[in-house]
């Protein structure tokens, strides 16, 4: 500041010119405003404020098409005023506040929310002395930015602050009149909208209901309100109602803020159908939203063809494209359609933008898992069963059967796991990211000695975990996400033959306080498999006891799902629960699978009698068609104990095409003396 030359005194005529320009600006007469500003800048070429307002006037005059130029002008103004927005600790002079604000506005439209927030935070320290209109604008933008960065608590705090200070009507008018504490009527609906958005994001449904009610009573025709209401009904599980609300809005193409309504409409319909488990319909709507988005961008681009960079699009439409949000939705939807590869392609792009979302990383891993194993009934398919016996060679006395080596395939993926591909290696990487993005596991954190146990520990759990572009995760969601990640991690580690890690993840999973029945069941299976590989078969056999399998439900029991149930309306839960089928579907089959694994463990330990017995019991309950593994084990047990005829019966019955040799029962009575040379011929 010391280096700057003091500005020349403002003359009366200049003052007059400035106020004229301002009134023209207020009247939206940007042309005449511009010409006035040209006169003024000729007289005061070193005044940064004049330069600034000239730039603003020209930007308005252009219809917000010259964003690039405006940015250049803005940075020139910064130089003139000796302001370094990016590096300053805080605002030095309230005179510069408008520059800060405008910079933040531009960044907001460029969707650089963090950078915009950074600047506005600095400005906010000086909110009191700000001129009232600017203070209002700044707080509104701040709230919006907190919402854009999924920080609903901060946004809510700001709304409350704004209600108390900035928006109280006529706060300078004199303290005697007592109605001052009332919020300015004109701003009430806006504030209410912000509050609703915060509450929706925080998923505190009760207060949200109240807020929405008052909104609906005053501005039931407002599109934004209707969408919020629909969102609210959707979150409560009233999907039909939500759909109806959406349908009630006439879909004009663009809002004033430059948003494309058909994109939003179709996207939201997609969300609703997803929750109704109508995945293909959901995918249809997402695809439509996608097309609308592409079209909208194309239109704008066509308009901007002869212009460079950002200019040519209006400021509002620069950040209009919802490409990545749509990819995210689409990817998750496709995964639930069972289309692992297309889903993977969508999500792998989305994750580059939303990399702080732990659940998205889990979804990517799930894509990889599904790409390698479509579902758990895959083992029962004919093509898998055909792998049991691969064929025969030779004829006559020389005839040989070739058994398959098993279903397990260790094909190391080509390239490094860092290059995204739907492999287990990449899945392991994704899961590692997901786990790192979660707050520290309260279980492991507890091991650190803590003195007062009950009161303090609750607070860190209350923190919301960001999951852009979706709403942030609440504590209960984080806990359930952690369980899913651990289960997937254990599974993937097994697939990669990393048994130590698999054991670790499985143990960790089983320690979690709130497990679904299915997760506990899987935890035991994974742990047992890892233990067998690590030669702790006795432990595994204990775990695999089919009697231990008592519950394989995919969701937590309703009454136990923690306190926020009370927050939710009892009237509103139409359909909740799982969106994608999982097998085994019933307890009998689940038990049978555990028992099959038990048979395997016995077989590996050489206890063939027990293995055979368990295999027999399991096969009667596991349901048909039998998984291929059962044939393998059956043949294995028969052959390893030398019951060649028995094996032949199985082969002839189930794989008759590979052998012409019928087993006649009388052959059993005939002592089939094994000739020593048969094995070598």
């Amino acid at each position, binding site marked *: 500041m010391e280096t700057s030359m003091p500005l020349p005194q403002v003359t009366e005529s200049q003052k007059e010119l400035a106020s004229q320009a301002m009134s023209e600006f207020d009247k939206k007469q940007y042309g005449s405003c511009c010409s006035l500003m040209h006169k003024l800048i000729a007289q005061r070429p070193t005044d940064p404020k004049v330069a600034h307002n000239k730039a603003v006037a020209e930007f308005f005059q252009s219809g917000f098409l010259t964003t690039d130029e405006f940015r250049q002008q803005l940075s020139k103004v910064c130089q003139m005023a000796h302001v370094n927005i990016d590096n300053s600790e805080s605002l030095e002079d309230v005179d510069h506040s408008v*520059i800060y604000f405008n910079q933040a506005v531009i960044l907001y439209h460029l969707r650089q929310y963090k950078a915009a927030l950074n600047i506005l935070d600095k400005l906010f320290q000086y909110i009191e*002395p700000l001129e009232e209109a600017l203070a209002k604008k700044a707080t509104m933008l701040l709230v919006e930015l907190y919402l854009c960065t999924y920080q609903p608590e901060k946004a809510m705090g700001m709304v409350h602050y704004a209600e108390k200070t900035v928006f109280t009507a006529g706060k300078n008018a004199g303290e005697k009149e007592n109605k001052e504490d009332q919020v300015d009527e004109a701003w009430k609906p806006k504030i209410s909208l912000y509050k609703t958005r915060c509450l929706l994001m925080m998923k505190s449904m009760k207060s949200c209901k109240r807020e929405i009610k008052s909104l609906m009573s005053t501005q039931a025709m407002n599109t934004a309100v209707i969408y919020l209401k629909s969102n609210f009904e959707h979150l409560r599980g009233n999907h039909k109602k939500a759909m109806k609300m959406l349908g009630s809005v006439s879909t004009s193409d663009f809002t004033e803020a430059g948003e494309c309504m058909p994109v939003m409409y179709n996207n939201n319909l997609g969300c609703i159908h997803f929750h109704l488990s109508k995945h293909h319909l959901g995918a249809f709507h997402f695809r439509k939203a996608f097309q609308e988005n592409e079209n909208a961008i194309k239109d704008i681009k066509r308009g901007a063809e002869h212009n460079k960079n950002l200019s040519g699009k209006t400021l509002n439409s620069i950040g209009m494209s919802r490409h990545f949000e749509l990819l995210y939705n689409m990817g998750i939807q496709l995964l639930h359609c069972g289309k692992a590869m297309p889903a993977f392609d969508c999500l792998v792009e989305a994750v580059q933008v939303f990399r702080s979302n732990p659940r998205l990383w889990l979804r990517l891993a799930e894509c990889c*898992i599904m790409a390698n194993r479509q579902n758990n009934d895959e083992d029962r398919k004919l093509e898998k069963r055909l792998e049991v016996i691969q064929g025969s060679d030779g*004829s006559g*006395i020389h005839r040989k059967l070739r058994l398959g080596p098993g279903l397990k395939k260790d094909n190391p993926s080509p390239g490094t796991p860092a290059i995204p591909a739907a492999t287990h290696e990449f899945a392991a990487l994704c899961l590692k990211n997901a786990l790192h993005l979660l707050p520290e596991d309260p279980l492991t954190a507890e091991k650190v000695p803590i003195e007062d146990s009950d009161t303090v520990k609750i607070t860190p759990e209350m923190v919301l975990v960001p999951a852009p572009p979706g709403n942030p995760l609440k504590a209960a969601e984080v806990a*359930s996400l952690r369980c899913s990640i651990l289960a997937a991690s254990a*599974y993937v580690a097994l697939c990669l033959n990393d048994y130590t890690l698999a054991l670790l993840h499985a143990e960790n999973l089983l320690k979690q306080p709130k497990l679904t029945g299915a997760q506990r069941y899987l935890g035991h*299976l994974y742990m047992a498999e890892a233990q067998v590989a690590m030669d702790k078969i006795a432990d595994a056999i204990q775990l695999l006891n089919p009697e231990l399998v008592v519950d394989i439900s995919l969701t937590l029991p309703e009454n136990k799902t923690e306190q926020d149930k009370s927050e939710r309306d009892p009237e509103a839960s139409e359909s909740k629960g799982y*969106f994608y089928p999982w097998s085994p579907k019933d307890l009998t089959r689940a038990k049978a699978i555990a028992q099959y694994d038990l048979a395997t463990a016995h077989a590996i330990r050489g206890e063939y009698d027990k293995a055979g017995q368990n295999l027999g019991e399991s096969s009667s309950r596991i349901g048909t068609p039998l998984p291929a593994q059962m044939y393998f084990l059956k043949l294995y047990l028969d052959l*390893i104990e030398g019951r060649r005829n028995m094996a032949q019966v199985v082969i002839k019955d189930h794989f008759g095409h590979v052998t012409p040799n019928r087993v006649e029962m009388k052959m059993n009575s005939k002592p089939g003396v094994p000739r020593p040379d048969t094995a070598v011929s």
Partner: protein
Amino acid sequence: QFDLHWAIPAISPAERYFLSQLISSPTKEMFKKTPTQIIQLDVSSMQNFDVSGLQLALAERQSEMPAQSKSAMPCVVPDRDTKPSSFDHFGKPGVINPDVQRQTIESLLTGNKAPVENCMMPEFIRLAPPLHIAEDELCWMNPVDMDYSVAWDTTMCVSSSAGVEIRRLMSKAFKGALTLQQQQQLLDELEKDNKLVYHIGLTPAKLPDLVENNPLVAIEVLLRLMQSNQITEYFSVLVNMEMSLHSMEVVNRLTTAVELPSEFIHLYISNCISTCETIRDRYLQNRLVRLVCVFLQSLIRNKIIDVKDIFIEVQAFCIEFSRIREAAGLFRLLKSLDSADPQNTPTAATR
């Protein structure tokens, strides 16, 4: 009865002899013989060959391996035709056909992944976990009902004259003491315009300079900044700046003018005491201790702090510097308050 296709078939003594020779110490003689010769060898006359040591070592080694790695079995299983498969074979069961034999051997032993290299072992059914269930995962889109647009600077060409002069004075005030006249001008201008204080370029970082050079101005400015939401930052700078006569003066004046957060005052006192304790220069130390004592006495007398909160700390301070008169005085004040304290209420009541 049992047909163990995976077991090594029984071998003749001649073969056994050959193998043992091969493993232990093959003689050159051996390699000159054809397979047929070896098989026809009469081994009964040979000296006893013993492979039990070898077998023992093998068993030992195998016992170290996990059960799973020992559970595999060969994939190739003989399946001799029980019925003739062509007319040639009628009536001649079990006849070796050299062509078929060769073909079979070739297809089993050769190739990239020869079937004989495969093995089969018991395998778990490994269930993939169910897809994670999240109730609120997808991105719902709501229209934003606000137009965030660029703002006009309404302060253009307005009241800049006072601002410029004030700012010039302030930048002087950061560097050195202002004259009385200058101070008065500054304070007058601040008096005139409530919001001017935010335009003078005083950031928390610059506060110490102002305090050292112009404590009176600093006090006035801070009093005007009390409404700012940054005031705690100013306070924390003030508390942590180097202790001096001027800073103490500012704090003292502030305590009498407004109600300061008590933790702020405590922090400042601790800071003062530790500065006194650590300073090396004896003369300066005495001076500072006296200052602190007077400062504390004034705080206590004006009931700005509760003695109980800082009693121990201050007492220790007094004892350490008991050689200084003011410290002794402060100590007496503390004691009198402390002894008066229990009877405080009854005496007050009787009066």
